[in-house]
């Protein structure tokens, strides 16, 4: 969908990644790259390790083997200032929003700004207000996370992830637990931000409608194969793939 997606440079390299807990291997030898400006979707059924792959890419869960390189930095080989610099250049929206319950939405967005920039408090509030406006939450700025709906929580989570304008945003299950209309609204927002800001999105989801609406490219993980079973444009995979599990997934059949 996005014009530059086809031939743009890669911003994330995942090379030969194996992940699991103890002797329980989730997937083996997964290699792919994410290009600048695209919406990249990691999909697969429940329990295939999608969320683990995301946590591994942002440096939370260590891989058993393989390397993750984001914007030229090896995630699992940097420490100290280099790691902090990397962390300010990625944003993460957590599955449940993970907003701080004791702070208003505006304060939640202000927090990374206060930590990593030299902006004064009035400027910070104004910038945070702009981010909440980008996700359509201006009017809820002074509410606490416990006072807003699930869809709003996810939007606020995106606004907080956007606080430092990172070139790469990771979204964990943006449509989980949302109704189709709210979920479609979130998809529109992702496309809109991707188009106007040029942000690269890495989205973990199993929501078929969402994958087809937002994904420029995707990879599919599978629990049985313990690895990656497909890579490419999700619409092409839907129409042309001959892999039985991929066909079953896109046609909503029990494999």
């Amino acid at each position: 969908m996005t014009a530059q997606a086809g031939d743009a440079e890669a911003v994330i390299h995942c090379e030969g990644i194996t992940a699991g807990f103890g002797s329980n291997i989730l997937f083996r030898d997964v290699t792919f790259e994410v290009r600048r400006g695209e919406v990249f979707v990691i999909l697969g059924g429940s329990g295939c390790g999608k969320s683990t792959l995301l946590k591994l890419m942002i440096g939370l869960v260590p891989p058993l083997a393989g390397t993750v390189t984001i914007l030229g930095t090896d995630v699992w080989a940097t420490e100290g200032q280099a790691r902090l610099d990397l962390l300010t250049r990625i944003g993460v929206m957590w599955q449940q929003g993970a907003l701080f319950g004791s702070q208003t939405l505006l304060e939640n967005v202000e927090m990374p700004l206060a930590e990593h920039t030299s902006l004064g408090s009035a400027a910070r509030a104004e910038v945070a207000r702009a981010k909440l406006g980008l996700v359509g939450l201006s009017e809820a700025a002074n509410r606490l996370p416990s006072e807003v709906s699930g869809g709003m929580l996810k939007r606020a989570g995106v606004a907080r992830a956007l606080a430092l304008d990172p070139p790469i945003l990771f979204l964990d299950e943006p449509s989980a637990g949302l109704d189709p209309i709210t979920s479609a609204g979130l998809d529109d927002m992702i496309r809109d931000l991707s188009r106007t800001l040029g942000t690269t999105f890495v989205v973990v989801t199993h929501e078929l409608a969402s994958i087809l609406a937002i994904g420029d490219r995707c990879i599919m993980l599978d629990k049985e194969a313990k690895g990656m079973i497909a890579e490419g444009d999700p619409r092409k995979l839907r129409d042309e793939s001959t892999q039985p599990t991929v066909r079953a997934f896109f046609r909503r059949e029990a494999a």
Partner: protein
Amino acid sequence: MTVDSGVVTLAGRLDTMAASDLWPKLMAQAAGGPVVLDVAGVTALDTTGATLLLTAEAAGSGNSIRGAPPKVTDVLERVRTALAAPRPKPEKGLPLLARIGKATWNAGRNALGSVGFLGELTLIALGTLLRPWRLRLGEVLRHLDEAGTRAFPLTLLLGFLLGVILAFQSAIPLRRFGAEIFVPNLVGISLLRELGPLMAGVILAGRTGSAYAAELGTMSVNEEVAALRIMGVDPMGLLVLPRVMAGVLVMPVLSLLLTLAGLAGMALIMGLFGFPLTTVMQQLSQWLHLGDMLGGLFKACFFGLAIAAIGCRAGLGAGRGPRAVGDAATSAVVGGIVSIILLDGLFAVLYERLGW
């Protein structure tokens, strides 16, 4: 950033870091007089940079932005619509009188809720007396273990130290009158009648009351309590009654242990002052009565009831979110300690009237 007769020229990347450095300078220029912001040389703009430009533009009448390249215009216009969205309505604070009224109303309703809770608990307890097989004995035993046996080491240590300190502190002034022999009476009576039950209550409130509140609070936040209600299981019977029973049963034991450990500590200090154990024992048996101990243990049961019930009530009444669980734990400990001190006062009056 260069300034030349009302034209501020910006160039290069205007990202979050650049914008935060530039913010005060540019705002000072923008507020000073009509300025034109020339952004033709800006190669990259992010939303923070765009917010800076738009805020500067709005800071003075006649300010304007010109020369934006197409990609910069996209971001600028997107952020312009974002900032134009209506601001939240400021919440109107209530006038002082209304606030006092609201606080009183809330406090009253809360007190009423506590009375209701106590009533519900009594009904459930009576119902269980009539149908004892409905009591969840396994739960009661688990809570007896958690609130009781696991608190024994702490209780013994605290009691021993308390006895040592009390004996030592009182022996020094009494020695000036040659009256150290009365130290066992003093320490014994204060431990049996007051300090034993009170200190055991503080231990129970800190260890167990807060744990009840946190556990039940997390359960209500996770809607587990609501799920129980909908399955037709009364949370009072399943969650509250075993905990309160454990509190009532465990308190006399803790209180007795604490007292005995205290007396042992006192005996040690008396030994150091040169009084043999037999003298101490004789002194104790002559001056202490069974009534002193039973009165203390009887009180302790009520302390346990108050602490456990307040902990459970705080947990079940918790609001939403992680902070609510913390608040519930705090109010369980504070409420528990305050209530045992109030109860202690009541018992003092009662025992005095009864001539115990």
